[in-house]
């Protein structure tokens, strides 16, 4: 590339103008504004809103008081240590669960520092049979007709943010029900996330798949309904043919067959 292809850019003052600058620089990319405000000031405002006690009680719920800080951590706008100190200062021991969750990010990052690109392949043997299918179009395009999964993909594509529990449900559906290669799914997911991070993303997919955990993660309809107040199931056209509507032993048998008992 010649030196003339370099351009110094004076970033515009307003967000809308800056976003237009970005569109002009990358004309082949399309998409909408993610709704997340970048920058340290916005990160500190978001940190000030964290309520560790409410987080403790509600974090597994889709409407729970989660922090939405992950895009800031991913880009170094905020450090994990700053967030932990702030939460402990605010709530003392009540910040335990929040700091515990921050530690997951640190743990995955340390594994990445130790193993490098090896985290992009199976870390351990899978504890159940997993598949290697490519990501199906209906999944990527939010056209599975499962209201839950389609809504998680729409969140992902429109905002780049998905609640942790929804990421777990979605990854479990893709890997265990659709038998998609966790790596193919993780690569796609990584690109769409605003907090896309090889360690937290790829190792979480492996955690769900059971290639970096002692067992696969799967869930049933009762669990999903409980943490979504049934709102997604109520609007689902497949609510009478729901693939998650079963007991855990029945699901385990359906997903993993005879192998399930070998674990």
């Amino acid at each position: 590339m010649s030196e003339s292809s370099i351009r110094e850019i004076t970033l515009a003052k307003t967000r809308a103008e800056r976003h237009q600058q970005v569109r002009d620089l990358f004309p082949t990319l399309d998409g909408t504004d993610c709704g997340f405000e970048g920058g340290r000031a916005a990160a500190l405002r978001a940190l000030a809103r964290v309520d560790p006690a409410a987080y403790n009680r509600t974090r597994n719920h889709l409407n729970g008081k989660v922090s939405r800080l992950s895009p800031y951590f991913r880009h170094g706008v905020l450090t994990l240590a700053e967030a932990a100190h702030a939460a402990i200062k605010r709530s003392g021991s009540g910040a335990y669960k929040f700091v515990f969750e921050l530690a997951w990010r640190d743990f995955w990052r340390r594994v990445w520092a130790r193993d490098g690109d090896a985290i992009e392949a199976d870390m351990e043997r899978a504890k159940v049979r997993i598949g290697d299918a490519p990501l199906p179009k209906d999944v990527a395009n939010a056209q599975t007709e499962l209201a839950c999964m389609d809504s998680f993909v729409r969140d992902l594509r429109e905002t780049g943010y998905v609640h942790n529990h929804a990421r777990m449900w979605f990854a479990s559906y893709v890997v265990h029900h659709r038998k998609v290669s966790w790596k193919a799914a993780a690569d796609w997911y990584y690109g769409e996330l605003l907090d896309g991070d090889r360690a937290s993303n790829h190792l979480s997919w492996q955690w769900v798949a059971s290639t970096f955990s002692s067992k696969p993660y799967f869930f049933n309809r009762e669990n999903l309904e409980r943490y979504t107040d049934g709102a997604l199931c109520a609007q689902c056209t497949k609510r009478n043919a729901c693939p998650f509507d079963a007991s855990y032993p029945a699901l385990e048998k359906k997903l993993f067959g005879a192998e399930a008992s070998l674990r």
Partner: protein
Amino acid sequence: MKILLVHDEMLNDTLPVFATSADAIRVFVLDPAFVASEGWTLKRIQFVIDCVAEMQNVRVFHGALADVCRELGATSLVTQSTPNHAIQQWLESLSPLTISWHDEPQFVDYEGRLSRFTAYWKSVAPQWFSEDVLIAENARGGSKLSRSASSVRGALRK
């Protein structure tokens, strides 16, 4: 000419590397090849640019990183360490320029094994919480510290 390369994991000028390299020119590069290889969406680039816009004295370029360094007459480059191989490989294109990697801030001190989260957490939690708190947490709701990592999260499904 010393350059402080601002990569996408250090979009915050209160990080220690900025204080230790006050004499360097701060540069952020939107390198189309790097952006494409990372598969960034438009919304991600917008977020990143909003972060950069708020930082002090950062010169922003669009183009290949090596060309930007050459154009600026870079003789050395400092940046923040990362396990991110994509960033490491991107900087390899600058060889033979001298690159100094400045440690990123740590969440905890830990040198132990990394086989399961639970063992790691058991070891580092005392850096954040007193023993009393840890004993109480352990006793509350089914001893979080003694469960396996997967059953802590697997418990969500119960």
